[in-house]
């Protein structure tokens, strides 16, 4: 296995299989929090942290607990609970140690438990069979993929929030204002992202 595989994993999960535009994961926060660039970025940072850690934790849980015990079928419930507890712990630590971080990031944490991008990436990591590369490289690959996915999420949140700030002041028919035009814009962005398909 060469190192390029990690680079490929990042590019592929960030651009080619972008979580929001091409895999439809995390659409709700994408629509909800992308109104302001600042809040969009804060949300992305929180998502990035939780997504990478969740990929790590779920991967370990799956291959160190579920597989040896032959109970892969409880994957869904185990993953969501472990992600939810992880989010709770993170929230607790942030509360305790930094008021500033809690004010800027903490308020997004509860939203993250029910952000399907986190669970989606964790489940997808398992079905990608990264374990074929060996336990540790597989773990590294899973984490790298999650990191790339989070970068892709952040990229979309940022670029979309800048578009959205313009859209707010655009002169649109009443019925298209807000979410409908945001969705159509996202559709056009998705078309553009399809064009990146060949880069790795």
């Amino acid at each position, binding site marked *: 296995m060469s190192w390029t595989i990690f680079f490929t994993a990042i590019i592929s999960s960030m651009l080619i299989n972008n979580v929001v535009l091409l895999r439809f994961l995390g659409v709700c926060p994408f629509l909800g929090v992308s109104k302001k660039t600042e809040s969009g970025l804060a949300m992305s940072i929180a998502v990035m942290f939780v997504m990478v850690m969740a990929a790590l934790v779920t991967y370990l849980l799956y291959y160190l607990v579920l597989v040896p015990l*032959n109970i892969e079928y409880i994957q869904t419930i*185990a993953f969501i609970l472990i992600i939810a507890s992880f989010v709770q712990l993170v929230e607790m630590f942030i509360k305790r140690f930094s008021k500033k971080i809690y004010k800027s990031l903490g308020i997004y944490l509860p939203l993250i438990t029910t952000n399907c991008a986190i669970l989606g990436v964790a489940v997808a990591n398992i079905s990608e069979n990264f374990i074929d590369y060996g336990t540790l490289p597989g773990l590294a690959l899973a984490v790298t993929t999650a990191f790339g996915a989070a970068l892709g999420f952040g990229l979309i949140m940022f670029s979309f929030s800048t578009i959205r700030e313009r859209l707010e002041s655009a002169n649109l028919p009443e019925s298209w204002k807000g979410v409908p035009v945001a969705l159509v814009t996202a559709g056009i962005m998705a078309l553009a992202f399809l064009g990146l398909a060949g880069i790795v």
Partner: protein
Amino acid sequence: MPAVLVVLGVVGLFLLSTLLNKNTQAPMDLKNVDAIKCCACSNYSCGIKQQMEEEEE
């Protein structure tokens, strides 16, 4: 039976972390945010948006 035990284990973990988090006070003037409110809220940008706006005011 390992299935039941593992489920119990993660439930316990979640319970523990929730309680720990609940018992940690949010710093000073900030409120604890409740995840479920975001989900039950009928506004697409959830309660978070209002809360932020309140804070900004």
